[in-house]
């Protein structure tokens, strides 16, 4: 049994959809409220480690997709969670994986996703005088001086 099959088995209870976009990768779509449970299952089985959290903004569909990448050797497992673009919010997984704190803070600052229960929600890496409520990685964020003139 490969690591990905094992992961699929672990997550079977919560998976809404399972895809294999490339060799060695597995995408599992889960509901936002199932995130902590799914992460706990992976952590209890010692399946890999959290490699990062990616946010994807899709204004057309009115969603912000949050991707939790777990890596084990050559394999990459991605938990995909779709959130509404209006007031997006998700539970923190820091109680399971403390190292997720930084990734969650990045997500909060860059996409305006409220991470509920994250241990340290303070201002992250943007400058001290950054305007509240402006999220640079959202698609509707306009750079003051665009590169292409």
């Amino acid at each position: 049994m490969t690591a990905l099959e094992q992961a699929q088995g672990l997550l079977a209870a919560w998976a809404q959809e399972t895809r294999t976009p490339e060799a060695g990768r597995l995408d599992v779509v889960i509901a936002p409220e199932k995130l902590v449970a799914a992460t706990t299952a992976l952590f209890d089985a010692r399946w890999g480690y959290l490699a990062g959290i990616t946010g994807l903004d899709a204004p057309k569909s009115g969603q912000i997709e949050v991707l939790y990448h777990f890596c084990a050797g050559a394999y990459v497992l991605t938990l995909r969670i779709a959130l509404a673009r209006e007031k997006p919010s998700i539970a923190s997984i820091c109680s399971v994986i403390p190292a997720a704190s930084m990734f969650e803070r990045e997500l909060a600052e860059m996409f305006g996703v409220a991470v509920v229960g994250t241990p340290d929600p303070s201002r992250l890496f943007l400058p001290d005088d950054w305007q509240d409520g402006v999220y640079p990685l959202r698609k509707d964020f306009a750079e003051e001086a665009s590169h292409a003139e």
Partner: protein
Amino acid sequence: MRLEELWEQLEARLATWGRTHSPWAVHFNSGSCNGCDIEILATITPRYDLERFGVKIQGSPRHADILVCTGPVTRQARERLLRIYEQMPSPKFVLAVGTCAISGGVFQGCYNVVGRVDAVIPVDMYVPGCPPRPEAIIDGILKLLEKAQAEGVAT
């Protein structure tokens, strides 16, 4: 009267000579990619040995004559750059090393980048390159000292 003038002139020349023959430099990275920084560090290592010209890279801006700036100025670093410049005693010179410090380079238009160094503080010498070779940095410093010598830096 004449003697006093002569003395003043002599003093000024002596000061210029001293200041251009052993300038101390302080290095500040205002958001660079590190490329220029390691090249600046390389200039003080045995191969290039900047101390041949009396130039010493040291820590405190209060003891420095030359501010070596690298990188585009980020919003967060802008205040620090200004403060370091203000802390330096006069006469002071600024050397902008690398394309980013001169124009912003590839980072032109990034949201967290204020832009080039001379938009924040006056710059006396520019060294383009991405990053410039250590030789090019030495060349820049020598040109800066030449210029300072020609203009005189008594005050």
